[in-house]
């Protein structure tokens, strides 16, 4: 991926056939043989373009309608988070507008997605990524108006993780299997990751 930052969105097309390997074995900085990459300005008006791209890739892989909708929402939440934490151009070393990069890696039985921020003012607010629990509406009369994005991502995707990359970048890594979730008791053994 190019290191230069551009305010214009860009899409790179897949270049080779699908492969399959354990998703947890790879990191955000490792390259997949096949991927679709899209880089958008860190502005909310472009997130719908990412959704369209994600829907196209997931639909092409044969994900169900509900799964495609789950993936769209999870990626939207990850992009929102990156955009909300993006630094203005004046705070960038390059002076260029911040961007958000999304990489979609289709494998034979799952889709791996990386959402990478570029040029943030602070580390994304994901430190308790494994500890977030659903809001318990019975324990408080104060209903949450924000902070639900991570909860949604964790609920909708099969695997979620965060990796801090080079140049102060943060990568949210998400995996969705094209089968019942790995934790489902009913999931056949051969479909579990």
């Amino acid at each position: 991926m190019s290191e230069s930052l551009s305010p214009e969105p860009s899409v790179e097309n897949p270049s080779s056939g699908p492969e399959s390997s354990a998703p947890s074995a790879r990191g955000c900085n490792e390259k997949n043989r096949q991927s679709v990459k899209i880089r958008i300005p860190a502005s909310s008006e472009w997130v719908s373009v990412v959704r369209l791209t994600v829907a196209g890739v997931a639909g092409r892989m044969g994900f169900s309608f509900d799964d495609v909708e789950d993936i769209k929402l999870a990626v939207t939440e990850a992009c929102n988070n990156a955009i909300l934490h993006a630094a203005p151009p004046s705070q960038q070393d390059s002076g260029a507008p911040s961007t958000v990069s999304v990489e979609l890696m289709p494998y034979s039985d799952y889709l791996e997605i990386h959402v990478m921020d570029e040029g943030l003012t602070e580390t994304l607010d994901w430190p308790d990524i494994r500890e977030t629990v659903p809001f318990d509406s019975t324990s408080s009369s104060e209903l949450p108006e924000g902070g639900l994005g991570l909860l949604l991502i964790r609920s909708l995707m099969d695997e979620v993780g965060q990796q801090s990359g080079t140049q102060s970048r943060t990568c949210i890594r998400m995996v969705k299997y094209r089968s019942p979730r790995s934790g489902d008791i009913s999931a056949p053994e051969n479909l579990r990751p």
Partner: protein
Amino acid sequence: MNLQLRTYKLEQASVVEVGGEVELHNAPQLRANLRLVCEEEPSHIIVDLSQVTFIDSTGIGVLVGALKRARERGAGFALVCPQPRVRRIFEITGLLQALPLFETMDEALGHCTVQADGAAGANSVKERNDE
């Protein structure tokens, strides 16, 4: 699809009809619309999400904020949400129990009527006690 908003008044409630995609980009537009409706101090506010094709957590947050403002002003609040996809998001976030969601407008209006009758009953009891 862009956000579509339409507001109209019924005898029992002010209705905000929402359509299209509700996301970070247009959530402020929905928030402003709901604030305007709330400032008119209707007895009930119904937000009809029947035509919503996508909603993210920002949109959910706006609805929660509208519910809070309505309650602060003593107004009833209800959501019409027939789509399982949208309803599921409320469920995941744990808000399904806290928000008055209904599958049809008739059910939401019925909820408003029950609330209004309950409030009237409470007021009449209070008046009798005051005497």
